[in-house]
């Protein structure tokens, strides 16, 4: 088991290195740097001015060297610029300053430390994710179990259709429809409109009014998939021998479902729920843009749209990390939950 986790950790670190290198390479392509120079300096810079701006700030070093400095395994640059000013990557006399030293860089859009921005934004998104999980997981499991306990029945067909509809509705569609229905008077002539169409105010104070729609929008898309997986695993369990034995003993149907079937049927959905995280991240980006909730996904859009290199790298590190860690947890958790799997 220990070796298995170690190997997975090794692969995970390798993947993270490769991914960040790709992001680093793509954001540091010359046209991107040129755009950065022009937005930071001024838009009418000549080509020479752009080159000297970039050279002075260490952007024209070789790519592996820059990556090493950003990572913190190579000493930071110290360049005497063409304007005579000496610029250092690292402040207060340190030689190494990169991700490994906890130095995430400076955001050019928000004019703040990347680590601070990522921290606060992640906190806000964490709040959203918590409520999404609270709504999504029980809802999906209940739908899946109800549909799977009598395969092929009318309940199964109608609930399966519901989950197909929910997987077929991307967030930007369900969000628009939900806002139209519950945050305006277009369809239903509300006495007072029950929900807000923006969640900007939820950053300070979460209320049912401003947080319900974004939560339900993300939860709906993920719910269908988890429900279908739960249904599949439930139907499999319901045909098992020990369920038949319980029926022959005369155990009542609700008892069979709750006592005998449920526990075994919930192993597979656990993996699926963990693997949903990367998809939730997508949903978070869309929903935060749609509802103007200034969390992590919103930051990603701002960073990518304005080619804020350091912030974008920070954001991608965190998201890649989240994806890889959830994959690891789902693998390990599956082994723990399912006694039939032994890793030698």
């Amino acid at each position, binding site marked *: 088991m220990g070796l298995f986790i170690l190997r997975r950790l090794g692969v995970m670190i390798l993947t993270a290195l490769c991914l960040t290198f790709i992001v680093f390479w793509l954001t540091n392509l010359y046209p991107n740097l040129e755009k950065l120079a022009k937005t930071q300096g001024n838009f009418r810079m000549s080509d020479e001015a752009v080159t000297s701006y970039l050279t002075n700030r260490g952007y024209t070093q070789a790519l592996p060297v820059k990556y090493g400095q950003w990572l913190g395994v190579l000493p930071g640059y110290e360049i005497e610029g063409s304007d005579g000013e000496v610029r250092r990557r690292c402040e207060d006399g340190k030689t190494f300053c990169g991700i490994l030293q906890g130095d995430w860089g400076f955001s050019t859009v928000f004019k703040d430390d990347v680590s601070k921005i990522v921290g606060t934004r992640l906190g806000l998104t964490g709040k959203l994710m918590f409520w999404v999980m609270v709504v999504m997981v029980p809802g999906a499991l209940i739908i899946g179990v109800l549909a799977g306990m009598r395969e092929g029945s009318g309940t199964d067909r109608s609930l399966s259709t519901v989950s197909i509809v929910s997987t077929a*509705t991307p967030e930007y569609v369900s969000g628009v429809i939900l806002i139209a229905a519950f945050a305006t008077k277009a369809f239903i002539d509300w006495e007072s409109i029950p929900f807000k169409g923006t969640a900007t105010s939820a950053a300070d104070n979460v209320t049912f009014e401003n947080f319900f729609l974004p939560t339900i929008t993300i939860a709906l898309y993920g719910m269908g998939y988890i429900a279908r997986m739960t249904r599949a695993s439930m139907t499999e369990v319901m045909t098992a021998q020990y369920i038949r034995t319980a029926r022959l003993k005369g155990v009542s149907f609700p008892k069979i479902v709750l006592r005998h079937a449920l526990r075994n049927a919930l192993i597979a959905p656990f993996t699926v729920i963990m693997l949903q995280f990367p998809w939730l991240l997508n949903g978070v980006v869309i929903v935060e843009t749609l509802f103007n909730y200034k969390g992590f996904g919103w930051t990603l859009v701002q960073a990518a749209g304005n080619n804020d290199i350091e912030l974008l790298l920070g954001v991608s590190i965190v998201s890649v990390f989240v994806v890889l860690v959830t994959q690891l947890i789902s693998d390990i958790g599956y082994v723990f939950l399912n006694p039939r799997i032994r890793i030698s």
Partner: protein
Amino acid sequence: MEPLTWTGSLGAILNPLFSISVVLLACSVVIQIVLSFFAPAMTLQSNPDGTLVKRGGALGLFEQTTKLFFFAALATVVLYILGGVIMPYGSAGIIGAMSKQFAPVWIALFLTFLASIMFKRRLGLYGKLFDSIIGMIGFGLVMFWVFTAVFAGLFDLIATHDPLTQISGLKNKLPGVALPEGSEEMNPHYLLGGDNLARDIFSRMVYGSTIVIAIAPMATVFAFMVGITLGLPAGFYGGRLDTLLSFLANLILAFPVILLFYLLVTPEIVETGIPSYMAAFLFVFPIVFFGVLLNSRFYTQPSKRNPMLILVLGGLSWLYLSMISQAGTKLNFLPPAVDLFDIAPGILVVFVSVVFVNSPTVFRIVRGLALDLRTRDYVAAAQTRGEGAWYIMLWEILPNARGPLIVDFCLRIGYTTILLGTLGFFGLGLPPESPDWGSTINEGRKLLLIFVHPPLPPAIALLSLVLGLNLLADGLREESLKD
């Protein structure tokens, strides 16, 4: 001209009928779900005369009523459409006028269903689809949009106005608004209202379908070519090749899709030519696939193989070269006389990134199937006959993996549609005035709290197409499992 109401005179009779049947359907479904936990299960009883009887009790009763109300609601929908087509323009309201515009689609759908149901026993898996209601509904939704795209894109039929023409005074006007006096447009109304640039929302939605229907299935085909060409050897040989390819696939899959799109589909990246190089790499796979497919089968008969290979590879390479050689990008080497076509800027980038995102998942599925199927007896038999590895992969394993692959193909077209919508939603790739559904939703959402009607039609269109593809996949899976 008077503005149109939603259902016109038809609504007086049909609206109450429709709402009653929908409410009853919902009640019956809810009661059924609650009951299913407590009521005894339905059993089959065999009669002395050899027939079977379903003994339902309360649960069976509600199952019957659900079916009844479902068909009642469906029938009212059909009546709305029929009424709209038959009654004169305007008297059946917006819905009637729209169904009149869609008349060619209804006819084509009717003929398709008629022919398919008549000959369903001879049509294999496709015919079996018409045994399941879910599958039929899904197929109907998908074909609705396919026919719409064909009629609008090739024959300029369905739409009422040009998707880019602006008519002053109709900015953000509500559905059914009449055009100002004296305008020379063919249709006197904006059926679904005007958007914030005073363009016809209905026509934009219709033309949006042509973009989606043109890109999504094609991109999925390419993703399948890449996934199959790499996944089969990875699963069949295993070992180092498998480890390397799986690592690369997982690498791409670990990327949040939106981050990848933001990194790939920006004007700056397009300037560097990376999407063109990626296109050059990804579009090689169909040529490799078909080359290997034919060669592995016919290499013992050179007289047959050589002309075939020359024809297929020559044609495909020509298509390939004219596809990747685009005026105005880094790769532009073919003289215009030989270049068959140029794809609109933006579309190629979108196409490439969608293929790139989809192919690792296809790779994983194909690899898993190949891992499973390579232990079968027919593979061992082929090996004993002395067949080559590629023959076994492409002519023994692949045909036997077709069931799950067809189902996944349908699901993946739906997912690709969602991805295209996501790109449009973030304003990436396609030009902002493009009528595709994602871009129109993006434009409409900005004023969503004031004007609800612009983003809803494209949103519902996208939902119905993806839903159709999902239901189709579900029907196909159910029917293919029955053998």
